[in-house]
């Protein structure tokens, strides 16, 4: 099924050796999903479920213990210019100016370009994220939001086949975050960029993503469910909450994060999610007619034996 997709992740798992010896537990196992060309996919889950590790494996910065990643029908091995990464801590080089930071990436992508062409191309992407005029500033002179924009501009400037964002707005205040989210949406819509993004923020996921991967808690985390965002793609931050679908999707996500992600990890029965070994089910909680997933009542949580590792 997923072999057709632009990016295909099959049976991925990652095990770190345990510090105190003993049986090592996989952080996540049997993670499979696909991303279509031009699709925006968010992955949501609690800390420690291995989201960043998955992103690093997609980027080629880490190796999986098992499983495969294919992009464009070729296996992902090592980092590549085909996949641009926006790092959690922006990762700008502090000794370079904004322009130089981006030119460094552009020069890496097109080593034969002339200096003038590199500068022109870099300036275009600086303008795209609304930082025209700040080209010669050093990162230390920029605010957190501006730094993250430079990080985004750097990733877009190399025109990768796929963009990977590791919680890019986590450290930003709500206002700045909103503005940059809008910018990201606008740029992605105009460039038809394929994006994979980690977030902790449910609202951010609903605003940006076409599909949202829900991960159960680690260790032995899995992609438990895939939520399709059925709202029209021209949604904006200002109007999104007028759509009745918004609340249905939001409730579904929050319910998953608050109750079900734990249940799955503890081996409890969660009938709505796939069992281990099966591909994650795709659901459309936004559409009416789908049985609304009510938050589980305390009494509805099965008694959990205290035997989990």
């Amino acid at each position: 099924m997923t072999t057709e997709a632009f990016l295909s992740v099959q049976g991925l798992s990652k095990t770190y050796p345990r510090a105190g010896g003993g049986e090592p537990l996989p952080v996540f196992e049997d993670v499979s999903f696909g991303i279509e060309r031009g699709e925006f996919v968010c992955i949501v889950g609690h800390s420690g479920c291995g989201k960043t590790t998955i992103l690093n494996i997609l980027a080629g910065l880490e190796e999986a213990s098992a499983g495969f990643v294919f992009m464009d029908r070729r296996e992902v091995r090592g980092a590549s210019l085909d996949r641009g990464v926006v790092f959690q801590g922006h990762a700008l080089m502090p000794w370079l100016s904004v322009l130089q930071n981006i030119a460094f990436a552009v020069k890496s992508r097109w080593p034969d370009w002339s200096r003038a062409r590199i500068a022109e191309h870099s300036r275009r992407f600086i303008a795209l994220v609304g930082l025209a005029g700040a080209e010669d500033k050093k990162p230390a002179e920029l605010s957190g939001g501006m730094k993250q924009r430079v990080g985004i501009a750097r990733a877009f400037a190399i025109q990768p086949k796929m963009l990977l964002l590791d919680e890019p707005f986590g450290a930003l205040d709500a206002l700045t975050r909103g503005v940059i989210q809008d910018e990201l949406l606008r740029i992605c819509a105009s460039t038809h960029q394929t994006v994979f993004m980690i977030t902790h923020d449910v609202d951010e996921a609903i605003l940006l993503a076409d599909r949202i991967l829900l991960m159960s808690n680690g260790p032995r985390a899995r992609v438990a469910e895939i939520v399709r965002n059925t709202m029209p793609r021209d949604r904006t931050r200002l109007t999104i909450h007028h759509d009745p679908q918004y609340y249905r999707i939001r409730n579904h996500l929050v319910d998953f994060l608050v109750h079900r992600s734990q249940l799955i990890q503890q081996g409890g029965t969660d009938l709505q999610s796939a069992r281990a070994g099966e591909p994650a089910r795709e659901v459309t909680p936004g559409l009416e007619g789908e049985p609304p997933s009510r938050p589980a009542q305390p009494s509805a949580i099965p008694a959990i034996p205290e035997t989990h590792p």
Partner: protein
Amino acid sequence: MAMTLNVKAALLSLLLLACALGAWQLAAMPPGSASGPGAAARTAADDEYAKLMGKTASTQKTSGLPTLGQMGETMARHLSDPFYDNGPNDKGIAIQLGASLARVGAGYGLAALIAIPLGFLIGMSPLMHRALDPFIQVLKPISPLAWMPLALYTIKDAAISGIFVIFICSIWPMLINTAFGVAGVRREWLNVARTLEVRPLRRALLVILPAAAPTILTGMRISMGIAWLVIVAAEMLVGGTGIGYFVWNEWNNLSLTNVIFAILMIGVVGMLLDLMFARLQRAVTYRE
């Protein structure tokens, strides 16, 4: 009231200088030069004796320390003609300092050429770090002058031995700081380089070098300080030219004025070298 801290500090410095110079002048004054019993009791026999001893009668008995006036005169004389050359034992101060700086430059330059690439290797490879660490730990605490006999025996050339001693003393801080700086380059910058498929040489020069430059420069500054300390001692041993040899030679001439002048010059040049490296350090330091 409205004096800035800098002005206050400058005034205090001047005051301390004046005190020090005053104390010097007092100590240097010939005992009883004013009208003590010594002068009055001088007889013809004393003068005769002084003549026999090769001193003219006019030579006053001094404490040995030059007075401020003599000192100033010597400094003016040296500084007004720094480049004269009257044979091996009588050269201008600039020639002496130049010889020392050339030796330091050669030894230090060689050390930098080896220490910085080797430091890169050690910083990037945990294997090399562990393999080379025992050697570094043993060689580092050896006083550079302890190498001198071995250097003289193997190299059989005093001038090159001097350069070798400078080389061996300035290599360690540079090596250790380079390795430390390179090993401490932030993971995310290296990850950026990886995702951009930056080639190893370009990564070393454009990512690791600027990232580690402040730490490397600190090591270079420490090394230069040590090299300038050691050159004086080394030149006292190997002789020839150089400020260290000049100090030793003037001590043999019993010319304390020249010794004190040379000491001051060593201090001034050392300060200028350090200032230069401080400038460089500021140029490569980045704010995160």
